């Protein structure tokens, strides 16, 4: 399946708390409450899947393979990704979360195994907001990276990628294979239709124990406290524009 003539895109995804959920911190500061909370594909990763599918639909790739690392019930997330249109999925089973560098090491193993010409990931997961994994994978793989992509143009050997940077839109030309991380404006992911969900149930999903992959290393960062952010005080109400102006002027803001 992974013969080298297949032009393959590997998309790495993470299951996170749905972006519409207002998260709550546990009273004992030990973490965020996750019981019964809706879990979804990280939104930036859904954009990564969509982009890979569009590339394939344009004839730029033969196969889209989805990979995730997580506990057994992450398979539902992978099935959703398959329902979007990917061909097969890889599930590295890990019961506790990995640090970004460990995740990158595991993804490197999958990359060596699958030989993709492109790895696409979200720029960050909206739970830990680390924004590290794609760059780390590119470094370990010794390949180019184009982070925060808002446009991707491919040829057989290169990718021209527009990146959302603080100064505006930067364009890079990178050799393939490469790692690209997605920003919000790259595309709008498709909605999954019911027949696709049925079809996804029979698509190949390979389970790999983390121990079999190896190389994750020992954790070095430990979260010792998780607290709510300092709250904002409710401010004042003014009755008209003159009062608003007076208040802004008094505070030196206009």
């Amino acid at each position, binding site marked *: 399946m992974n013969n080298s003539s297949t032009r393959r895109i590997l998309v790495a995804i993470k299951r996170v708390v749905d972006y519409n959920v207002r998260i709550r911190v546990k009273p004992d500061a030990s973490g*965020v409450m996750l019981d019964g909370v809706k879990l979804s594909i990280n939104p930036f990763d859904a954009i990564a899947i969509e982009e890979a599918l569009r590339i394939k639909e344009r004839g730029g790739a033969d196969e889209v393979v989805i990979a995730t690392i997580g506990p057994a019930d992450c398979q539902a997330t992978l099935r959703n990704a398959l329902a979007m249109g990917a061909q097969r999925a890889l599930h590295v089973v890990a019961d506790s979360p990995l640090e970004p560098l460990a995740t990158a090491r595991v993804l490197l193993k999958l990359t060596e195994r699958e030989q993709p010409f492109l790895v696409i990931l979200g720029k960050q997961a909206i739970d830990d907001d680390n924004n*590290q994994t794609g760059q780390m994978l590119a470094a370990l793989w010794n390949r180019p990276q184009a982070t925060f992509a808002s446009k991707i143009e491919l040829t057989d050997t290169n990718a021209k990628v527009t990146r959302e940077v603080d100064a505006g839109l930067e364009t890079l030309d990178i050799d393939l294979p490469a790692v690209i991380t997605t920003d919000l404006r790259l595309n709008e992911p498709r909605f999954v239709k019911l027949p696709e969900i049925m079809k996804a149930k029979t698509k190949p999903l390979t389970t790999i124990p983390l121990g079999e992959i190896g190389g994750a290393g020992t954790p070095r*960062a430990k979260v010792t406290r998780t607290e709510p952010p300092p709250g904002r005080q409710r401010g004042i109400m003014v009755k008209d524009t003159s009062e608003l102006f007076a208040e802004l002027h008094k505070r030196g803001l206009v």
Partner: protein
Amino acid sequence: MSRVLVIAEHAGDKLNAATAKCVKAATSLSGAEVVVAVFAAPGGTIAQQAAQLSGVARVLEVVNPVHQHALAATIAPQVAELAAGFTHVFGPSTTFGKDLMPRVAALLDAPQVSDVMSIESPTRFRRPIYAGNAITTVEIAADTRIVATIRIASFEAVAGGGDARVESASPGAALPTHTRFVGLAAAGGDRPDLQSATKVISGGRALASGEAFKLIYNLADKIGAAVGASRAAVDAGYVPSDMQVGQTGKIIAPELYVAIGISGAIQHLTGIKDARTIVAINKDAEAPIFEVADIGLVGDLFTIVPELEKLIDASRK
């Protein structure tokens, strides 16, 4: 003792203000020796500018024409080489630092702490998760080199007036040619950049059309503010999506944020809660935006915004 290597960000001729904030973060490690690394093309004065930052012990300057444009793939292996002997490597949590630092961390086999808000000890840091809806304290194992990006809204810039020694450095790392700069299209024309502006005015769905956003632009130009928008206004097609402020758009921390005709969905509030002063103008007195606003005014934006403009004009005469 901590030895901190700070990677300077610059735009060719001018040192980015984020660098002075990273130096501030580095100096908050007591007794730390702070060294700034500058990667620049020949002929610039970035290293001299960095040398003036208070608290900097030395500046390492790596001059090479390839540094005309900052590329993570090119800079990272050199930083990894220069990092020998340092306990910490800091960069700003800007798109420059976010792109570069994880690549450095992987080359160093070091853990990275992203978006550091405060430093409690050489191994203990506080950082936001869930777009700032929770704050964690992270402890890194002893005797581990630490890479970090510094959240620039959390640190003041150090003062100038320093006089550090500038040394030339020539890392021997092989530089890849697989990544090439093509171009940069600057954002926003003459208006300040949304991400770094000290004042931001945003419009929401209540503007009801793209043309009506002219009201927002006029007011913004009057006070030198950047212009943003709610997701609802973007989804309705009034303005382009790069103006979106919120969890899935831009997360900002200006001195002044004015929300006009924005109800204040959670995902929008997440993007603005670090603003120093939030002003809300909305005709719905029950809008959630008023729960976080420092100054609120209930009323019709189409009347209030032109009135406010006139009052600003009058005050300047």
